[in-house]
């Protein structure tokens, strides 16, 4: 494949890291993806279900172009891509250099288990004497010190938790492959100086550190003695007491640092002097320990320091850009002031614990059982805003995700219960239900209709009811009635917090933090930081759900890509050795079968001779060999030798974990000239697990039979494989962007900056879209100046052909080759050929007739008010009362979605009015205030400035009446539920928040083969995992034609869409996958059913030649066409009928 010389570092392999890495890799850059935990997937490895599907779906992020460069299996299990080098348990140590040319040093945490030797037999776990809480199950279960961090990843070598390990050596003794090398000789030479005036402290530390840690310990009883000791003996770490007679710890620290600036020092302090310890860290102390010591925490801390110091830094890399995608952490209720008795009542759990509780890989295998006593759960309560919107936990922000995950958890739990035939009561206690994302409101409404109870109020306390043996919640409903509800389980919907280590990482990279500790991004950007070439992706920069994380990861990839491109990183390195495979199509099949014997489950009861005999009864089988440990380096070498010796033209490997072999098979293919498509790995281990167990149920198929059948089926499949050359499609390396608003301009600039030509089409005579009537953002950024700047960059860009006053009148085509006809205002038509299409057609403020709009000049929309405030036609000092009404015609059918921007716009306007006229009375009627994320702080500010917020419900809306001359007198009446009385006011101004409607004409969507959703927004391929793609590859959307968004978010979607388009534009020909649909033309009757059946729009009728054509780059090999075709004309390469019949025969034989 064609790679580019540019390289990027992605820090953090959660979904945003994966998305950013894949985007960069698919464009052709080399990516190093590092992750500090021992597995990829981040938080998502612990979450099994996502709304709105209530399923997973992560695999939808897998590459769609040049599919075979990456793995094609469950992304939760693992990720393989030719251009991505994944380094687990690795952190960034240091960075030097400048954008486009960074030199980074990584630090890899050593693992005493050699991954290349570990066969995952698990014997070590059986003998390990150490039991600790298992973080994968959020502490609900336990694990050993040697363990699998995540049960489902591949490859999945065991790891040793060095902090918990006692180095007893039991695992090392039982390991059959000598994969474990435990003894750490270095610790004996690691000299720790303990300085404390109390003998007992010195002695116990010495004992702990020597016996449990294996370190060498010296002691000093005063500051003077310690300094003397440092001069005479080499010390690697000093543990230093703060409160000592004579010279105190801080003074010793200062002096020691003068003598030995690099000496790591850990302060020891009583709780009362913690502040001194924190101060000491500012003058060079590395950390502090609080007395009395908790040995469970002390030893691991020292071991961790030891490991950091003793692990040699490396490897070093040169990269053009760095993407920070370290995710977030979650609020720990135990940090609060007895938050709902979390920690003391076992049936009060966090949302993450609940996800584990109902997971199939969780503590109860997915059954809903109470943690306290294992009784089935019948009633669950979710408490929202735990650690969010809470000043007491320093969180004047909304965490964005909790409302939706609580609803999802309630739905999944109900589905679970329904399947088990039980009743489950689910209640969500909330203040504002923030359903501001695309499709969220309808999801909420569906859930409510299906029985999830939404209770508006904040629960005050959770207490055990000992008689009823359950929990009681005390809360006040909106009418002021105090209620006590009884439930079996309480789930705390915990909010987001900056990822652990954010501060250290951003300090290393030289990036500032916002007031809540998340990386600060540049104005109008959610990804760019103050340092060019260092960008933030996903929730690392704060408070994101999956679809936003994925979008912003793509946007971050774009920013990184731009830096790399500018530094010359896009120059193609064409001549990566193209593998040359022998043509075996005319040879009779000669299959080499190897059977791995490392698993007892396989070898027990398998008669090697009988198996060989059976397989060789098929003349296609040339040889059958038995190999030990195929996945280990040694085993693989043996296999390669066998292939070289016998020169088969098909290879069948019976082993386990087929995914692991993708890369190895490619390398082998290149080495011996055999197409990897003629090789197959079949998992013969997993299917026989049950048979191998002693308690296998009666009638379980013996492993010998299973193994034989699986291999025979694979032989049958391989025998008929005759790989055709991989198809490619040509690419017009330029793009059409429809819509010249901020999204369209951003996308056009992003692509043009990569050197590709862009045709930007705008139906109006001027660029700018909605930005033309906006003046300032809520955080005070100057929108007009920003628009002016963007316009100038677009109009002056040599790679952008601007078509103002122009529309797309016709278009057709597919990924790589689109043909569009543009027509300008004068009727002149021009044709543009392009490889990718970006729709950025935007939207506008919805029109309304509600609340007396049109009957009085005093009743205006938000857009009217924005204009009046800007041009000065409205003088706020002349106003006495302003009423604002949110959700006008929104969040109810037929426009049942949240427009996302109106609440913050009202806050912005209210603040502006209040600033100009502090005595102005402003009343905002709202349903749920959608001040998500950091916008919440503006909501708080608004309340503080005296603005009144009155909630209303659909059955009790406010009313507006205009009378007097020209409707000059406007009366607004509503109902204040807290006081329980009607309110009425004469308003000088009524502002209606009518929301956003899209402008995506049906004909335009049809022309490019994409769908619109029920509200006429662009229908993305998948709302979570492919938020800016159409299902049809090659068409993307951004801005508010996709979903309502603010400026920053629209820009992020535009950058994401541009990045997605670049994957296609980056090469002259687009290679397809190997498994694609084809047609037997002689059998085809041109009924076109397959064209309708194809979900990816990859099939079309070629009327000139009267045949159906498949765009192989768009085809994803799903087989819908083959199933639909009445004549067997449509088929999938490698899955034709004869072959499948053979496989079925082999299975039944």
């Amino acid at each position, binding site marked *: 494949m064609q790679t580019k010389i540019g390289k990027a570092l992605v820090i953090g392999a959660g979904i945003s890291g994966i998305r950013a890495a894949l985007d960069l890799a698919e464009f052709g850059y080399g990516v190093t993806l590092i992750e500090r935990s021992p597995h990829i997937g981040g938080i998502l490895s612990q979450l099994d279900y996502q709304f709105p599907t209530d399923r997973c779906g992560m695999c939808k992020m897998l590459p769609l172009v040049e599919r075979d460069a990456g793995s094609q299996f469950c992304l939760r299990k693992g990720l393989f891509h030719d251009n991505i080098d994944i380094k687990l348990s690795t952190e960034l140590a240091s960075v030097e250099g400048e954008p486009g040319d960074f030199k980074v040093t990584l630090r890899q945490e050593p693992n005493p288990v050699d991954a290349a030797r570990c066969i995952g037999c698990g014997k070590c776990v059986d003998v390990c004497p150490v039991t600790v809480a298992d973080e994968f199950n959020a502490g609900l279960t336990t694990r050993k010190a040697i363990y699998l961090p995540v049960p489902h990843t591949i490859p999945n070598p065991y790891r040793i938790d060095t902090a918990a390990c006692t180095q007893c050596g039991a695992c090392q003794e039982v390991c059959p492959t000598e994969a474990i090398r435990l003894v750490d000789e270095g610790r004996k030479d690691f000299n720790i100086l303990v300085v404390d005036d109390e003998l007992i402290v010195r002695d116990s530390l010495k004992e702990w550190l020597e016996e449990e840690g294996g370190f060498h310990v010296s002691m000093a009883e005063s500051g003077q003695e310690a300094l003397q000791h440092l001069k005479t003996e080499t010390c690697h770490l000093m543990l230093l007491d703060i409160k000592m007679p004579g010279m105190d710890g801080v003074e010793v620290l200062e002096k020691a640092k003068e003598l030995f600036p690099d000496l790591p020092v850990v302060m020891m302090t009583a709780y009362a002097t913690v502040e001194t310890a924190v101060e000491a860290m500012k003058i060079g102390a590395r950390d502090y320990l609080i007395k009395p010591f908790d040995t469970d925490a002390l030893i691991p801390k020292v071991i961790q320091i030891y490991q950091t110091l003793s692990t040699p830094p490396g490897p070093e890399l040169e990269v053009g850009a760095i993407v920070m995608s370290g995710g977030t952490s979650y609020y720990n209720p135990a940090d609060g*002031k007895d938050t709902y008795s979390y920690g003391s009542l076992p049936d009060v759990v966090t949302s993450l614990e609940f996800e584990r509780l109902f997971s199939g890989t969780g503590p109860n295998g997915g059954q809903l059982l109470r943690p306290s006593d294992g009784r089935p759960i019948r009633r669950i309560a979710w408490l929202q*805003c735990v650690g969010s*919107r*809470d*000043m*007491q936990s320093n969180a004047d922000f909304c965490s964005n995700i909790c409302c939706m995950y609580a609803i999802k958890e309630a739905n999944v739990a109900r589905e679970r219960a329904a399947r088990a035939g039980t009743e489950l009561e689910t209640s969500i206690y909330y*203040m504002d239900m923030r359903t501001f994302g695309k499709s969220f409101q309808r999801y909420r409404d569906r859930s409510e209709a299906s029985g999830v109870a939404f209770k508006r*109020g*904040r*629960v*005050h*306390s959770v207490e055990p009811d000992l008689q009823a043996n359950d929990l009681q919640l*005390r*809360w*006040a*409903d*909106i*009418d*002021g009635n*105090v209620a006590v509800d009884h439930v079996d389980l309480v789930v705390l919907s915990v909010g987001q917090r900056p990822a652990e280590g954010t501060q250290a990482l951003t300090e290393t990279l030289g990036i500032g933090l916002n007031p809540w500790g998340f990386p600060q991004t540049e104005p109008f950007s959610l990804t760019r930081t103050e340092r060019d070439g260092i960008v933030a992706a996903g929730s690392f920069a704060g408070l994101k759900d999956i679809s936003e994380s994925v979008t912003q990861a793509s946007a971050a990839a774009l920013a990184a890509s731009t830096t790399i491109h500018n530094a010359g990183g896009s120059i193609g390195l064409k001549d990566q050795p193209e593998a040359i495979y022998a043509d075996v199509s005319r040879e009779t099949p000669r299959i080499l079968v190897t059977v791995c014997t490392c698993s007892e489950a396989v070898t027990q009861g398998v008669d090697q001779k009988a198996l060989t005999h059976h397989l060789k009864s098929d003349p296609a089988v040339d040889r059958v060999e038995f190999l030990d440990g195929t996945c280990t380096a040694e085993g693989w070498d043996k296999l390669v030798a066998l292939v070289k010796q016998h020169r088969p033209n098909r290879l069948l490997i019976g082993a386990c974990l087929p995914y692991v072999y993708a890369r190895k098979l490619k390398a082998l293919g290149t080495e011996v000239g055999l197409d990897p498509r003629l090789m197959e790995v079949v998992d013969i281990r997993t299917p026989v697990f049950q048979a191998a167990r002693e308690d296998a149920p009666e009638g379980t198929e013996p492993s010998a039979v299973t193994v034989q059948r699986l291999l025979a089926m694979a032989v049958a499949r391989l025998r008929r494989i005759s790989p055709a050359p991989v198809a490619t499609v040509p690419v017009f390396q330029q793009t059409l962007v429809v819509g010249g608003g901020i999204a369209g301009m951003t996308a056009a600039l992003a692509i043009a900056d990569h050197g590709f030509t862009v045709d930007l089409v705008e139906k109006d005579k001027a660029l700018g879209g909605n930005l033309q009537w906006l003046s300032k953002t809520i955080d005070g950024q100057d929108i007009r100046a920003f628009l002016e700047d963007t316009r100038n960059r677009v109009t002056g860009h040599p790679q952008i052909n601007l078509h103002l006053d122009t529309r797309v009148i016709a278009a057709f085509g597919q990924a790589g080759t689109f043909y569009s006809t543009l027509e300008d205002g004068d009727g002149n038509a021009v044709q543009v050929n392009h490889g990718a299409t970006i729709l950025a057609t935007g939207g506008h403020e919805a029109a309304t007739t509600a609340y007396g709009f049109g009957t009085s000049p005093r009743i205006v929309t938000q857009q009217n008010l924005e204009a009046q405030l800007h041009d000065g036609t409205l003088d706020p000092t002349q106003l006495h009362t302003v009423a604002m009404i949110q959700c006008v015609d929104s969040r109810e059918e037929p426009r049942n979605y949240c427009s996302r921007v109106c609440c913050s716009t009202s806050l912005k306007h209210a603040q502006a009015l209040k600033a100009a006229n502090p005595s102005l009375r402003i009343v905002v009627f709202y349903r749920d205030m959608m001040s998500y994320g950091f916008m919440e702080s503006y909501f*708080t500010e608004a*309340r*503080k*400035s*005296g603005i*009144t917020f009155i*909630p209303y419900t659909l059955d009790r809306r406010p009313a507006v009446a205009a009378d007097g001359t020209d409707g000059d007198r406007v009366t607004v009446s509503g109902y*204040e539920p*807290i*006081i*329980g*009385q009607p309110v009425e006011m004469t308003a000088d101004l009524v502002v209606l928040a009518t929301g956003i409607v899209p402008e995506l004409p049906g004909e335009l969507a049809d022309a490019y083969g994409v769908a619109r959703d029920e509200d006429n927004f662009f229908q993305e391929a998948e709302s979570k995992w492919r938020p800016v793609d159409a299902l049809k590859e090659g068409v993307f959307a951004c801005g508010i034609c996709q979903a309502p968004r603010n400026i920053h978010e629209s820009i992020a979607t535009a950058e994401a869409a541009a990045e997605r388009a670049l994957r296609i534009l980056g090469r002259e020909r687009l290679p397809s996958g190997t498994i694609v649909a084809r047609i037997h033309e002689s059998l085809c009757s041109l009924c076109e059913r397959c064209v309708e059946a194809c979900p990816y729009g990859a099939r079309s009728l070629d009327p000139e030649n009267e045949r159906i054509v498949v765009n192989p780059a768009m085809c994803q090999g799903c087989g819908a066409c083959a199933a639909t075709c009445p004549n067997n004309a449509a088929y999938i390469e490698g899955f034709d009928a004869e072959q499948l019949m053979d496989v079925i025969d082999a299975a039944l034989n």
Partner: protein
Amino acid sequence: MTAVATQNRPGTESAPGPDALKAIQDKIKSCIQCGTCTASCPNEFAMDLTPRHLWRMVLMGDTEDIFASQTFTLCSACYTCSLRCPRGLPLTEAMHDLKQLAAKHKLPRYKASTAFYGHFMDTVRRHGRIRETEFISRYFMTMTPSKPLMPLKYTSMGLKLLRKGKLHIENPFAAPGKQSLEAIFQKVESMEERA
């Protein structure tokens, strides 16, 4: 919904004007009406307005209704609402401010509670500690000056309390710590005047 009498409210003739509430409003402006205070209040069952309802009225400047309510006099300063408030608002303090406003304006409706608090503090000021007998006698004097023998109705209860050690026979001449407490009270008075 709590029914609030909208007319014939006795004793609100000299109710503080909306401006009097300004300082209290400033303290609780960022209230989001979540209701945690109401659910947390142990005396909520006896209140005519729930705490949230009261705070909403304070924010709306509805002095008439506020000073027709007994809610704030029933606050026992347990601080649970302050502890639990997600906005971290000083609600107990605000309750106290309302009590003070009522006392300052000598609203007849709050005569009993004002007198109760007043005599309590006076006793403490005089003796450096609470003296139940003196305090309650003075309270009765204020409340029912025309029936000096009325308190005798409580004799049997007083005896019971005495037996349980809840009531003490006090030496009216001993006044430990009077000096030091007087200074504190004077200081507070001067601070309150300044405020």
